[in-house]
């Protein structure tokens, strides 16, 4: 079964893979604060307040989330992740992208040359439907297909 959701492509691109899902706010700084200090080639989520993702490697992941939260330092965190090529591949927001994520992901794209495919406004139903491990594809126009 294919479930199709249409969002807005903030940073367009095509991606296929399996999802990691958090239904609470994604605290960027708390999630990445260990992986930005030591170059391991991984980005293991260090946010102990987020049981959905804690301990999971977020490098190359397709993350489904409502929006980001936490420290405004995260703007620069994205650039470090970009420089080390350990960003997620895609960030799929159910809500409109928040300023913190928008600024960080745009700077990573426009100043560090690393695009994290970013789609927002996918809607509550998207986040209610998608499960961690689902196969998913994202089109440049912002269409997201979940394969159940």
């Amino acid at each position: 079964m294919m479930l199709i959701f249409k969002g807005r492509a903030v940073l367009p691109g095509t991606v296929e893979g399996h999802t990691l899902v958090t239904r609470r706010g994604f605290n960027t700084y708390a999630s990445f604060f260990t992986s930005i200090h030591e170059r391991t080639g991984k980005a293991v989520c260090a946010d102990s307040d987020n049981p959905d993702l804690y301990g999971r490697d977020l490098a190359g992941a397709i993350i489904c989330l409502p929006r980001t939260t936490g420290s405004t330092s995260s703007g620069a965190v994205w650039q470090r992740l970009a420089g080390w090529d350990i960003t997620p591949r895609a960030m799929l927001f159910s809500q409109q992208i928040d300023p913190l994520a928008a600024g960080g992901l745009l700077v990573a794209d426009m100043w560090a040359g690393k695009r994290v495919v970013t789609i927002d406004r996918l809607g509550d139903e998207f986040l209610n439907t998608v499960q961690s491990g689902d196969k998913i594809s994202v089109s440049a126009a912002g269409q997201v297909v979940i394969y159940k």
Partner: protein
Amino acid sequence: MKLTMEEQDILDGSQGGMLQRVMATIVAYGEALDAEKLVDITGMGHFVIANVIPGISPPLEMLDSLIKAGLKTAYPFTLDPAAPLDHDNWWLNPEQIATLQHMYADQDSYDCRMQTLGLRDLQAFTCTPYQPEVGSVPQRGAILAWSESACVAYANSVLGARSNRNGAIIDLLCNIAGKVPLSGLLTDAGRKATWRIDVATEHRPLPQILGAAIGRTVLADVPYVVGLDRFLGTGLGPHTRDYLHELGAAAAAAGAVGLFHVENITPEAVDQGAGLLTEGYRHAVINAADLRDLVDSYPVLWVDKHADPDKCFLGCPHFSLNQLEWWAAEIQAGLQRHGRECLRVNTTICAAPQVLEKFIDNRQGWEVLSRAGARFSSACPMQAFDNDLSRGDAIITNSNKLRTYTHARFFEDKQIADIIVTGKIGRRA
């Protein structure tokens, strides 16, 4: 997004390639945020990244390219707390000192670059630039492009200035352009409350716990908080300001709260009352049990969960002068209560340089705490300990923000006072 002729010219490269790139980034930022236009920044900046710490600070090459193009911010700016290079105040072992020195090896040249880009002065390092002693206090209605989540929450909520929660680097770029997208918390509509939060406790809740509970409930939405005037009175006295800066820091760290209104207290709530609530607003009640459950949910991340505490850090966000005096009295009472003269836990208390200077000038509280063995710093414990540098240290704090980002263990103020005097975590804790 509609641009003025001047903005379009800059975007077309009329003022050089680097400013063109800055403007292109801000325009893309505005489009992502659905802004209809850019507006002029009208007040000083405050940015979250004060340090050259790898992985968090803007790359030096990026700063150099901005400087080489002759760019600087439209107004002077302040920065978050200085690098934790005052090692004696942090109870560090030689290996930790060596690591910090290595991490911050480029700090002087970073500071130099920041001065060139518009840093107000070399004492302008604090997460509370709005303290009167520091003197970066935006006017109500001022348009800002601040970062540092706690500062943004305070500037919006308590001062009535207008800033979105900008991230590091985009903050600097906006202030260099002197422009910021008109969106979110810069607009009247974006400042309306989509949540009503009723505080239904019998006693005044701890601000960093209530703030975290609010942040978890509303995430990035704007809450209208009802019931705090029972404990704080109406309007904005110094103690209420202190309470709200703690509450805002925790709400921002636990969620993404950039603005909160408090009935009969914060300026827009005083002016507009419940008229700030949107149609169809959501409603939540927070009671004492909710707050206790929240604290109980915090995991103990110490390597040895049953260790006696090694270190205690207070002042995240940086304390005000009143808070320093309150802690001096509290710790003095704790020492008397337990018949001791010195603290058993290595304790560091943080405040802005100008606030500490005033506290030292006032003598009494400073002498009490110094005699007890406390140390003072204007740096930030998060920047010293938000990595594995001190993974084995058993650190306690009264800061829910510090707890969120490190392995520090949270205790309430009154518990902290007993723990640092006795060196033991009592049954109540």
